[in-house]
């Protein structure tokens, strides 16, 4: 191992800190390409930002604010938060503020708008900011104070992480997708299995993963405690970025002799549909070991699985069928663009005819905000990312995490089943 070998993440961080070399544990200050916030975290950031007495943000083009959690405003307090955020965005002339009607779930919207590309360093006051690792960017969730300081200075402090390498080979079997891969990994390494670390996904298996699947995998890196989850840049990445921005992607490649704290070899062909049982994402079981779990609600959407491919898979299962009588099925496209495309492709019609609701984009039910809260004792299967106690409503309700295919199949059966059984 050469002395200066770095992981992909370390190379991006070094470049943004103006250093030739960084090593694990080193504290650095990095320049930011984008600072992100939502309607829950931005109000706290604004309070902190205002303490600095500044009249301007560091760069009005490099901040994005997406009110997506409790929007369209769920109650008066949320409306007041959104108003505060809206007025701040206007006063600071923030270019990338997205109002209801043009917004989407932030981590689906930001890449769609071309606001993050390969090689960027992005912080977001939302834990699922790690999603953009799918594009070969370093992106990580932070808190509101980091957002405030990022808006003021364009900088953030980072402790350089070490990395775990996931060497992927093979291809998924039918109905198995990126969601099953990441649930499998979290089940294997645990909810703190990658604490403070990068998860770097490599190997020839990567090329068989669509960009939507890569977003899903990177999105849930935080559920293993990781700082970021990153993919190498290939034609799939570059084709996605093309036409969305005038900026040039920067490609960083891990050194062959980079040091990893662990290496896992995963044959995608071995992965089965996987479900996380309450109340932690690492409490996983493969679909054949689920047993008899009846459900009250199905949620398909979120920053994890609210993209076109997710909706197409769900529609292919629900087409010309009816959801089980008495089961509430809520389908949320990730952005307005996806909403429109789902209409044009006839997916919206399939969902409504099957007896599901097809809603405007919102984080809503994923975090127990609105648009599908669970009562005491109720169970939901959901394509979202967390199943903590009380996550989707009453502290005595339960959330089971799964892929869009498993969620859609379960909607027809009223209990958790494999799409193969439909």
């Amino acid at each position, binding site marked *: 191992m050469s002395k200066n070998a770095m992981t992909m993440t370390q190379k991006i961080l070094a470049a943004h800190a103006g250093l030739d070399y960084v090593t694990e544990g080193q*504290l650095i*200050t990095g320049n930011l390409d984008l600072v992100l916030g939502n309607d*829950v*975290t931005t*109000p*706290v950031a604004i*309070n*902190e930002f205002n*303490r*600095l007495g500044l009249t301007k943000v560091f760069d009005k083009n490099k901040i994005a604010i997406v009110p997506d*959690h*409790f929007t369209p405003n*769920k*109650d008066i*307090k*949320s409306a007041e*938060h959104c108003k505060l955020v809206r007025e701040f965005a206007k006063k600071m002339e923030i270019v990338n503020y997205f109002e209801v009607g043009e917004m989407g779930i932030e981590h689906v919207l930001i890449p769609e708008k071309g606001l993050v590309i390969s090689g960027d360093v992005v912080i*977001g*006051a*939302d*834990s699922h*900011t790690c999603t953009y690792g799918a594009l070969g960017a370093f992106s990580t*969730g*932070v*808190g*509101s*104070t*980091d957002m*405030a*300081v990022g808006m*003021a*200075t364009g*900088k953030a*402090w980072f402790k350089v992480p070490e990395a775990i390498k996931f060497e992927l080979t093979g291809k998924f079997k039918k109905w198995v997708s990126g969601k099953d891969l990441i649930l499998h990994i979290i089940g294997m390494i645990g*909810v*703190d299995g990658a*604490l*403070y670390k990068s998860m770097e996904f490599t190997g020839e298996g990567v090329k068989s993963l669509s960009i939507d699947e890569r977003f899903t995998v990177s999105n849930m890196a*935080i559920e293993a*405690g990781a*700082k970021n989850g990153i993919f190498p840049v290939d034609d799939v990445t570059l084709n996605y970025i093309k036409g969305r921005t005038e900026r040039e992607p920067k490609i960083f490649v891990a050194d062959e002799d980079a040091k990893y704290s662990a290496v896992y070899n995963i044959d995608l062909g071995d992965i089965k549909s996987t479900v996380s049982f309450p109340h*932690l994402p690492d409490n996983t079981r493969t679909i054949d070991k689920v047993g008899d779990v009846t459900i009250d609600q199905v949620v398909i959407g979120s920053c994890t699985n609210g993209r076109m491919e997710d909706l197409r898979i769900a529609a292919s299962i629900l087409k010309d069928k009816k959801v089980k009588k008495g089961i509430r099925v809520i389908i949320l496209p990730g952005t307005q663009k996806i909403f429109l495309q789902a209409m044009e492709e006839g997916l919206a019609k399939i969902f409504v005819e099957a007896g599901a609701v097809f809603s405007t984009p919102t984080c809503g039910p994923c*975090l*127990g*905000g609105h648009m599908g809260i669970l009562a005491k004792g109720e169970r939901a299967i959901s394509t979202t990312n*967390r199943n*903590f*106690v*009380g*996550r989707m409503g009453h*502290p005595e309700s339960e959330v089971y995490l799964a892929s869009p295919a498993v969620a859609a199949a379960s909607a027809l059966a009223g209990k958790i089943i494999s799409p193969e059984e439909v």
Partner: protein
Amino acid sequence: MDAKGKVLRYGDNIDTDVIIPARYLNSSDPKELAKHCMEDLDVNFLEKLNKGDIVVADKNFGCGSSREHAPICIKAAGVSCVIAKSFARIFYRNSINIGFPILECEDAVNDAKNGHELQVDFKTGIIKNITLGKEYKAQPFPEFMIKIIENDGLINCVEKGLF
């Protein structure tokens, strides 16, 4: 800079959804948030808590969401510090950034039981379990983080030109 108080002891993977449930995140007022601190984990938390008490937990404390509301509400409720075997990284940096002290010390956590009296010196990282008459040394903070905590948060550091 030190703290003294009795232990409120919890387990592994205490997530931010139970520290401050999202149904209360339509407020950003620390006092309002503090009223619901740890509500979904322990409904009696606020009754048990005396100002200055210390939350002690096992591994991965504060996992989940990036909501700074979590350390904000713990601080505003009157907890003087959190000691755990490990912290989720966003909770860790949020605590540092708001100047709320947290310490990682496996041995102190293993011995601590509900009601034990602890004394913590943040500068040296020395934790004393007065009830047991034992002393432990936590992972010391790097200088950079001590600077943030001593200035009561990152914003003050920016204001003073220290960042």
